[in-house]
């Protein structure tokens, strides 16, 4: 069994209780950080650890923190992005429901590093259980002087508020999150300015994913070198992989970065249901370009390897599709999600994505026309890198990759005027 970091104590009974958490080294990282480190030293330490953002983009966390201006004269905010909404992703929920203090400890240390005295956890509205757990944990942390004034008697103050979203994918986009947190519609902001300089309530703001922040106490406790012992040279640490789809053992697996995808599916996920043939895998949440079965044979699960394969590690939501999957149907389903979730402010995303959904659905229903695939790809080109936020590109990720890699299946649909795939009806794909 590999050594775990984030899920190490996940099965300890009552680990969500602060006293139990403290017995398992809980809040020792915080104490060490406050007593032995200056804020800048923490930033340097995290930079040295190579910790990269676990929300999808993989931006180095320490570097992000170092962008916060020290002399803006405005309060600095820290927002924990707990709006986990990328289809195929369910790791942050687990971290929050099972080990909330690990996250809170990471938040306090990060806040200390960036000189922030007001932090928020922006949590997805549907996560009612995680909310309850976090509320309780935050109250306990205040009681135990791990939050509030003069934390652990080291002179550092931090208020932490839990804020629930109202159910929107785009609230997970960092500036959409800030708008929502300010009480407005979750509509991404034009960048620049970037949140590190002008963010929440116009103050410098750091936004980090739940998993990213949960790693911080461990890096403080055990050092950058130890952390770099996990994973690859540029993708350090472990990663929570979310396995779903046509797989025998779906679930969250913590493994070092760089694990071969094949090993993840077969050794950990228990292989494909019913011994059927693998067809495709979406490696990093629904927006990341799909991999064919042949690519799955070769690719490793770290930022660089997946980028080299033309896709992304993203949120590490690994969606496994076997031979009973109709790629056209799956695409229609994915675009339906993005068409539904587009915030609607910018033109290409608002209009283009629903258009793509309609075409994909039509092809699946046997009413595809010659030229539809070229049209779809051209719509993608008209969206690609032209939208206000990354959502446009998220929406076209599956479209371009599905058509490019499974073109003959699309062509069969159009030519035959029907869906030629024998689907496994026992798994409901459309929600």
């Amino acid at each position, binding site marked *: 069994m590999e050594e775990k970091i984030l899920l190490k104590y996940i099965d300890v009974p009552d680990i969500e209780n602060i006293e139990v958490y403290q017995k398992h080294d809980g809040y020792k990282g915080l104490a060490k950080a406050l007593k032995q480190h200056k804020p800048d030293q923490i930033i340097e330490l995290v930079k040295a650890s190579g910790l990269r953002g676990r929300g999808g983009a993989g931006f180095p966390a320490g570097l992000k923190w170092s962008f916060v201006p020290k002399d803006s004269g405005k309060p600095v905010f820290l927002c924990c992005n707990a709006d986990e909404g990328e289809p195929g992703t369910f790791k942050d929920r687990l971290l929050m429901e099972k080990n909330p203090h690990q996250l809170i400890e990471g938040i306090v240390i990060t806040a200390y590093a960036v000189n922030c005295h007001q932090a928020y956890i922006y949590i997805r509205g549907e996560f009612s259980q995680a909310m309850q757990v976090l509320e309780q944990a935050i109250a306990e942390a205040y009681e135990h002087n791990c939050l509030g004034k003069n934390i652990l008697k080291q002179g550092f103050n931090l208020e932490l508020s839990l804020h629930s979203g109202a159910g929107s994918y785009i609230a997970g986009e960092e500036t959409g999150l800030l708008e929502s947190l300010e009480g407005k519609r979750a509509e991404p902001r034009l960048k620049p300015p970037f949140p590190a300089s002008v963010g929440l309530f116009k103050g410098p703001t750091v936004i980090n994913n739940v998993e990213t922040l949960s790693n911080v106490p461990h890096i403080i406790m055990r050092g950058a070198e130890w952390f770099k012992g996990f994973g690859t040279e540029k993708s350090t640490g472990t990663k929570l992989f979310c396995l779903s789809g046509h797989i025998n053992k779906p679930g969250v697996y913590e493994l070092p970065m760089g694990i071969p995808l094949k090993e993840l599916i077969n050794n950990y996920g228990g292989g494909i249901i019913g011994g059927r043939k693998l067809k495709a895998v979406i490696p990093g949440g629904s927006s990341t370009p799909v991999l064919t079965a042949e690519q799955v044979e070769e690719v490793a699960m770290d930022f660089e390897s997946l980028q080299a394969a033309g896709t992304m590690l993203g949120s590490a939501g690994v969606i496994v599709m076997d031979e009973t999957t109709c790629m056209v149907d799956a695409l229609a389903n994915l675009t339906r999600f993005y068409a539904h979730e587009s915030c609607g402010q910018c033109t290409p995303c*608002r209009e283009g994505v629903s258009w793509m959904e309609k075409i994909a659905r*039509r092809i699946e229903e046997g009413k595809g026309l010659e030229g539809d695939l070229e049209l779809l790809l051209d719509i993608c080109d*008209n969206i690609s890198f032209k939208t206000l936020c990354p959502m446009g590109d998220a929406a076209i990720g599956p479209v371009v990759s599905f058509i490019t890699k499974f073109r003959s299946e699309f062509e069969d649909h159009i030519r035959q005027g029907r869906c030629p795939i024998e689907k496994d009806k026992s798994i409901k794909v459309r929600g």
Partner: protein
Amino acid sequence: MANIKIDGKELQVADGITILEAADIAGIEIPHFCYHKELSIRGSCRMCLVEVEKMPKLVPACSTTIKDEMNIFTSSERVIKNRRGVLEFFLINHPLDCPICDQAGECTLQDYVYKYGSAVSRFTEEKEHFERRKELGPHVLHYTERCVLCGRCIRFCEEISETRELARFNRSFRSEVDVFPGKRLDNKLSGNVVDLCPVGAMVSKEFLFKSRVWWLTHTESICPLCSRGCNIEIDSRDNKILRVRPRPNPEVNIQWMCDDGRFGWDFVQREDRLTSPLKREGAEMVSISRTQAINLVKGRLSYIISNFGKEAVAAIASPYLTNEDNYLLRILLLSVIGSPYLAVCQPPQVEERMVFPSGFTIEADKSPNLAGAQDVSAVEGRELISHRQLLQKVASGEVRALYFLGGAPRMSLPVEEREMLRKVDFLVVHDYAPSELTEWAELVLPNLSFAEREGTFTNFQGRVQRLRPALLPPGEAKPDWEILQEVCQAMGGEVNYPSAEKVFEEIVGAVPGYKSLSYKDLGNQGKAKG
């Protein structure tokens, strides 16, 4: 300063301006929808994306600031393809109902599609449908399916009127602009969202289906409904006003106007406009010729002067009429007759001054030319008598003849002042329609509304601005200065101005503060007096 290149053109521009602004300086138009110079920048329409050397993605021209050495391409293949793509996206769910759309002919979407769009649609799906027409408020309708969701209207209500009635509702392709539940778009500036809308989504209830816009004649003028003097354009057809819209003037009205002004010109088209001089005969007013009218004035004034002296004649100038009109009244009374009793009618204050946080202001004084009427009536070294004092002289019998210039769109004199008018032996009134002034008048001479006039108003800031005639006058109605000139001549005065312009030139010489001005230099935005 930054040295940049736009489409090969080298130029030097101020640091910190945007690509869109720089292109404007270079005379290059970058198509856009959501950008508006008076509103915050959202960068959401994606129409203004341009290519910048060394930047991998196309960038929004509206929000990207200039950097030294920037090399910008506004019509490269990639840029044009994006424009075509954005326009196609706008059109897929658009009803394409240009033939019955009020905006046709002045529609940004239409113009851009004409320039960059495709003649063939690639969209074969069902269009999304919305409620066809929503009533947002007393003046504004919303054709949701035509909306491009640029959000200018929403930002206007957030940033300029600060009334916040509008928002975007729902997400994605189901997005639509609407009023918040329980609210109506009925702020004083609501009509501006119609002007701001680049397409035919926001339309004016008053103008709806009145005319195709290309049949309209556009005349630059000044709003007569408060002392701010918003610069306007009168859109007319067949000698009727169909629409009034603001013209930009940063010194006066930015580029807005209030709904009172925008929709308040109906008095011009009153059914009962006066078309010939009227003389009282008992309870009746009978029509007489102009010559008869002038003779009547001459006869009555001469009689009163010879029996009671010059000071038995008084006149009240009008803050609703132009400087030129009021100046001729001054010549008649002070020079030709020689009476000192010239007053300026004080307009009643009916509401408070309204200052919007964005700076736009609706003045409490609902007359357009109080400052100007006072300027041209004043004689150096002598206080102007108030119209109230003057009316008291009428009541006391000291003044027996009163020359009263009217022209107020809907002013009402207080009852007691109106009663004083009954006391006067000879009341001659200029007005455009029956009013409380004409009620007791012995003689009424029909004058013009603002929309038929040439001349100048001086706004509350002392800015002298020109009116231009959009309509032909009804019947024998004449500008007041012309009528007064005839009266002067009949009374032996030596005046002969061929035009309002010539009267203004006389004012320039005679009235302090106007010396630096010339009629031609007033242009279409006016000039501040000295």
